[in-house]
């Protein structure tokens, strides 16, 4: 592994791109810098998939344990609201692609327009979510120990009446009917849609940041990395919803 020396400044790309203010010193070329950023973003998205993946697996295990309860609990979700949000997010993905495309071509007005439309879609999604959540809060379809809906035809809890341990624990737990499974469904529902909602919120913030920079005319065909990476993030957030929607609203 001995080395010889190569003069950096003789390297063609170096001289060519030396003027770009976004060029960081430890990259030889802008292309290398762009590719590296993209690898970084993809890896980050992998961690996001695994973050949600844990919850998906947990949901699957609990659904296997309470198949009937999960199907029954899901009827409390309003299907058209979920479908509306799916459509809204699909549209936002499309506008995001158009924004990235405009950034690649360096067309400022289109970048601003499509980024703004994406943000609008994200806001619509959150508004719909707000109505969904508040309805559930009113009816008492809440996680685990807060679950207080009275309308279910719940069976008596077998596990709690059996054994001396359960009898000792009885005063601290609500008496029959048993909410096991129903409550678990809503624990996961709020966990997963909540975590997804946080991601939408973060998306709005970074989209706004990119929008401001686009409005300053910072992006051109030689440098549009932030728009591209935010686009990747946004598509992932949409995709997670594409999986969440059938999982919660369309169980059979």
């Amino acid at each position, binding site marked *: 592994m001995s080395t010889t*020396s190569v003069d950096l400044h003789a390297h063609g790309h170096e001289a060519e791109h030396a003027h770009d203010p976004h060029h960081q010193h430890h990259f030889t070329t802008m292309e290398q810098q762009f590719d590296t950023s993209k690898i970084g973003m993809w890896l980050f998205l992998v961690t996001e998939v695994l973050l949600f993946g844990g919850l998906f697996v947990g949901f699957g295990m609990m659904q296997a344990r309470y198949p009937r309860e999960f199907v029954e609990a899901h009827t409390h979700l309003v299907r058209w609201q979920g479908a509306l949000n799916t459509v809204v997010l699909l549209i936002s993905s499309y506008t995001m692609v158009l924004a990235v495309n405009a950034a690649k071509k360096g067309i400022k007005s289109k970048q601003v327009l499509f980024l703004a439309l994406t943000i609008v879609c994200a806001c619509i999604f959150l508004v719909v979510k707000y109505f969904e959540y508040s309805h559930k809060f009113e009816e008492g379809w809440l996680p685990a120990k807060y679950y207080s809906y009275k309308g279910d035809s719940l069976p008596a809890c077998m596990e709690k009446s059996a054994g001396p341990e359960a009898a000792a624990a009885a005063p601290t737990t609500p008496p029959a009917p048993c909410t096991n499974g129903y409550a678990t469904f809503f624990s996961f529902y709020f966990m997963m849609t909540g975590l997804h909602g946080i991601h939408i919120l973060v998306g709005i913030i970074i989209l706004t940041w990119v929008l401001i920079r686009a409005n300053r005319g910072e992006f051109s065909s030689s440098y549009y990395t932030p728009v591209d990476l935010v686009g990747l993030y946004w598509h992932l957030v949409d995709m997670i919803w594409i999986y969440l929607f059938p999982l919660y609203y369309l169980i059979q």
Partner: protein
Amino acid sequence: MDQAIKTTPRIGDRPRPRKNYLNETRGFKSWAFTLDHKRIGIMYLIGVLFSFLLGGIFALLVRLTLLSPTHKIFGQVLLTAEQYNRVFTLHGAIMVFLFIIPAIPASLGNFVLPLMLGAKDVAFPRLNLFSFYLWLTGALMALTAMVFGAVDTGWTFYTPYSTTTDGPVTLMTAAVFVLGFSSIFTGLNFIATVHKLRAPGMGWFDLPLFIWGIYSTAVIQVLATPVLGITLVLLMLERSFGIGIFDPRIGGDPVLFQHFFWFYSHPAVYIMILPGMAIISELIPTFSQKTIFGYRAIAYSSVSLALVSFIVWGHHMFVAGQSQLATVVFSALTFLVAIPSGVKVFNWLGTMYQGNIKLDTPMLYAMSFLVLFAIGGLTGIFLGTLATDVHLTDTYFVVAHFHYVMMGSTVTAFIGGLHYWWPKMTGRMYSEKWGRVGCLLWNVGFNMTFLTQFFLGSKGMPRRYYNYLDQFQPLHAFSTVGSWIIGLGLFITAAYLLASLRKPADAPDNPWNGTTLEWQTSSPPITHNFEEQPVLEREPYDYRPVVAAR
């Protein structure tokens, strides 16, 4: 070719540059806001060594408490049972999350990886600094939790105990969550760096094996740690809001927590051991002055260890009420781990065979590693085998096994690597004589402490217990005396390393005649690592003089 000989510097054949990464800029801000991977590596090093000291003090306290079954030292009870639970939890949590996971990748790896690649920095220098501050935040949160009464759950935070016990469990798990993200970002950074910032001419199979090890580690960091993150979030929500996912009273399942936890934490032990193996793969060829035996086999074994690590988590739950089928399958998969581990050990031995072995301090640690790792690895087979595991599970046998792998192997490699790169990082040589004394004490103390615990465990001494039967006292006492010898050895090591900083810079650029690129620059390196972009021309671990190659 004559030119090439010149760029493999020997002692004193190149004037030392006046400016290096340590003295180019000065002052607190120049460190706090630095983007230089070398400075961030040094800051991590100081942080993890401080954590090691803290975790070590707790370990000594645990051992001292167990010196006698009455727990009395000079007539006073040293720790009550509750305090004992907190102290061993702190020992475990600090050693795992604050010390050993970041120890090699974030400190030595951060310093060496870009140098070995011939790069100016890691791919994302700002993310690198951010991940250091995340680590610092997590560490401060963990310390705060300690001040406010500490947790007594063990480092594994098993439900339902962790959701019902008092103490700042939520703060502690939040700290671990933050530390997890620090680890993710380090891994992400390294993967991108290895993919995109290799020197011209450096293909994947020209990478030093240290890089292969760190790369495999990074893959696990990125893939496994998010699952720990979400598990800890669920635990925090369970404690704060009672979402009931792990609570059987409202339909949850506490074993689900164990599955989630070990889906991360089993790969996490490979986050700990793979960088250790990575260091050994550098030390052995360098101090044997012989081309590594089975380069590709070692490289692939690192990657396959990373992959296998994801499918063996169930072996932590053999007695936790997992289905028999799952138990048998996990046991069979666990044995797969032996294959890549064995491949590595035999290739290292093959490298040493007929090599020109120099017994400098780093090599002494590397050879200690081989012995200690063999013991740690072989006793793992006892625990992976179902029939023996039922007897040995949750005994001191398990404690001894994982200390042989985590401490005997990873920490030994870490100390070896620290000595190996110490001249590069600081520009100073340490006292070789005291280095050997430190290594000897480390080996004697370690084996006294933990070999004893295999006997304790197989005789039935359960782990984590405060009380024990009088018949176990001789072994416990022997183990405790061993822990003092470890302490003494580490104290001496710290003393001579720190003493070396007081003298003027005397280290040559390449004190060990290493072939990897970090030895081609000055000691300590300049801020931009290399005067000129290095280009790779020879295979790694080619120790022949350039003239002879002609």
